[in-house]
């Protein structure tokens, strides 16, 4: 069940009515917990078992961390459990051929069909939430929840379950522990997010994906097709992922819960640091707080406070490699992460003026950084590095007349949907206080949603990570 299809909204409507009818916070949480598990059961029956069981074990270990603070074994056991489960489901298949070869060399024939594991939806996202919970308890910045259903609700909070945002326990748990009363403001803040999310997913992302997927499926696209399809993909992935965030935030608002903003016009970024402050913000904050800062502090301690080359290069490289591996088991993701890590390091090494303001000051930075970020999307989306290398080295730029027509169609779509983003940005920036214009734009978006609603809803890209 996709959060863009009609059945989901019928389900959510029932949950919403029940949620606000029941009198107390405890009952509201129960409604949310049960509906979250039912929703998850619907999309991933095995996933529910894994989530509930591992969350229970982790909850017990977290409690023990609190009762025996000097004993670090509980912390490490819980941390290892999370990492082990993530690696088992996410990366096992990646290593299966190597495992099969190794077993075959020992004379054991294992059929890959026997040892293929399917990734439970949402595992990557809730694993990061659980790790942050454990580390925060370990650092004494958070008190563990004393109530298992409440903690399970935080992990399985269904608007965030599939693709985040990765909200920390310190942000979400206190809200779940508070009484919530229905206010019309909940609806006021929710409906524009829901319309915007559905528009981005159904109208922009799902339309772009048709041609983008086909270009990346070609044995040999032309150079121009590859470049324009990459730009189209960058629009598609932003529309797709930010659509999920908007929908997730909108649904949470209807439940009286505030969740984090995950995107802030990433196309306007002028440097890698700026990009990660605008793109998948909750993930980049997670990487910053749990990988980058600890590594940087450790390195500075080691070098007695001197800002050595290693202290500048290694922490962002490690953080971005983790980001790449988190996205998936594939060399393209690892290279994508490494490329981002290196960009962050290089930009740190280049002296720059802080706090640049104004369009003309930012333009050179934008012109340099945008091709770099597009190249990173090329690495991310390519089916393999060998394929990408072959296209970049050997493919003709334009190709046949048919190839040119397809390239021009792609370019038209990029310009059209790029303009849609530009219009949205201008409306949000300059017409925020012009309610008529806002209402008209949302109503056009809603009309287009009805027109482009598809029988077979496409999966969210980040749902598979």
């Amino acid at each position, binding site marked *: 069940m996709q959060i863009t299809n009609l059945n989901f909204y019928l389900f959510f409507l029932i949950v919403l009515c029940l949620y606000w009818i029941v009198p107390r916070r405890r009952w509201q949480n129960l409604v949310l917990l049960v509906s979250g598990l039912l929703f998850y059961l619907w999309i991933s029956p095995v996933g529910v078992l894994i989530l509930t069981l591992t969350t229970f074990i982790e909850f017990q270990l977290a409690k023990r961390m609190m009762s025996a603070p000097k004993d670090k074994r509980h912390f490490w056991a819980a941390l290892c459990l999370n990492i082990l489960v993530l690696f088992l489901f996410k990366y096992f298949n990646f290593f299966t051929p190597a495992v099969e070869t190794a077993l075959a060399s020992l004379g054991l024939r294992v059929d890959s069909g026997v040892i293929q594991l399917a990734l439970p939806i949402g595992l990557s996202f809730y694993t990061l939430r659980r790790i942050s919970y454990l580390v925060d308890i370990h650092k004494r910045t958070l008190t563990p929840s004393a109530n298992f259903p409440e903690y399970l609700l935080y992990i399985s909070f269904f608007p965030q379950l599939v693709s985040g945002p990765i909200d920390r326990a310190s942000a979400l748990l206190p809200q779940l522990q508070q009484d919530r009363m229905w206010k019309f403001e909940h609806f*006021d803040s929710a409906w524009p997010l829901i319309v915007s999310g559905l528009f981005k997913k159904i109208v922009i992302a799902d339309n772009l994906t048709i041609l983008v997927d086909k270009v*990346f499926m*070609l044995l040999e696209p032309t150079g121009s097709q590859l470049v324009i399809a990459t730009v189209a993909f960058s629009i598609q992935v932003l529309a797709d992922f930010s659509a999920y965030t908007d929908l997730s935030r909108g649904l949470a608002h209807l439940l009286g819960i505030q969740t984090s903003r995950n995107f802030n016009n990433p196309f306007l970024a002028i440097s890698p640091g700026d990009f990660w402050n605008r793109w998948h913000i909750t993930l980049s904050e997670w990487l910053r707080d749990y990988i980058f800062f600890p590594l940087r502090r450790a390195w500075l301690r080691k070098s007695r406070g001197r800002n050595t080359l290693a202290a500048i290069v290694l922490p962002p490289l490690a953080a971005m490699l983790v980001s790449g591996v988190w996205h998936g088991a594939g060399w393209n993701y690892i290279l994508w992460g490494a490329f981002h890590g290196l960009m962050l390091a290089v930009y740190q090494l280049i002296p720059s003026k802080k706090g640049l303001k104004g369009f003309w000051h930012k333009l050179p930075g934008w012109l340099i950084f945008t091709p770099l970020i597009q190249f990173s999307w090329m690495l991310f989306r390519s089916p393999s590095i060998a394929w990408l290398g072959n296209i970049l080295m050997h493919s003709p730029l334009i190709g046949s007349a048919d190839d040119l*027509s397809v390239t021009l169609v792609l370019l038209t779509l990029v310009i059209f949907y790029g303009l849609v983003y530009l219009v949205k940005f201008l409306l949000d920036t300059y017409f925020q206080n012009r*309610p008529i214009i806002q*209402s008209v734009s949302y109503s056009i978006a809603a*009309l287009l949603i009805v027109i482009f609603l598809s*029988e077979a809803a496409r999966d969210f890209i980040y749902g598979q990570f």
Partner: protein
Amino acid sequence: MDSSNRTDHPFTRFLLFFITGLVLLSLLVLAKRDWEYPLSGHPTFERGVRRNYLNDMNNLRPELVLLGDSTLNWGVDDKVVSAATGMKLHKIGIQGSASALWYLLIKNSIAQADFKPEVVAIFFRDTMLTDPAYRVYGEYFLKIDEYGNDADETLISKAYNIPRSLPDRFLMRFLPVYAERSTIQGWINGWLQPLLTQPVNGCDYVCVEYAKARVFNFVRLNPAVYSWDVISTESQLYTADKLLFDQQFKDSFLPDIIRLCKRNGIKLVLVRLGTNRFSSRADEPFLLRRYLVRLEETVKAAGVAYMDWDYENGISASDFRDSVHMNAGGREIFTKVFVKDLIALLETK
């Protein structure tokens, strides 16, 4: 809150504009559909049967018709089959086709021909024959639209009405914009896609569609990536409900196909094609095997010949181009196996 405040509320204003737009667009759609309301509740087949194989059937007068999707084109060498059986053969392998289209072809072309073929062999994968809504929406609808028309009640009921959810059926009947959204999408695409091609290289919408078909032709696709795409698309054939044969059979096109063939004196042969998902019968999931056993029992009881995929036929994973299409090696082996089984079947007749 007084009434002026209520209409000033952003959501109320949004709703007013939205409903106005919806009504205006609906009127436009209704005008196009001769003011029929409520609507029929299924996609409209606008132009009747636009493409049929009736002329081919009458001209070629084939004794044997092979029917299937692109896997048939890649899996069977029709010249070898024709030479070995001595039968005049017509192969209809339509990329992206499935049971709805095969039913239409049998009903509107094969059964209508002056000269009825002796044998029709349908090549299918696993649960395709009992999933009437497989490959009938989106780009596939355009194909169905070429072969079907509004008078095909069985098609409409089985492919479009029964499998729809309640809200979907409601909107299809009462919201014209929703019901006609494929047409409106066509208008938008027809305007948007040639915006640059028309002035740059004089390629209009039809020319763009042909260019896309040639550039994204199956043979230009990367088999490794394409395989994943097929596996992900075809996963809907293996859901728990689709594997319950007895529940699916009644509402599928299979009983209609069997009835049409019987009525026209055509010997129907169902040929299950393998995929490189499974390398042996033991690999097949229990529910799929149970489904296939029930399929075989049911069709054989109805007098239909059934050829299951033989895992010992010598075709291995390396004989597949991707997850479902055989390569030249696989095609050579499979054609021989099919010819042998077909001749045996014709001899026992």
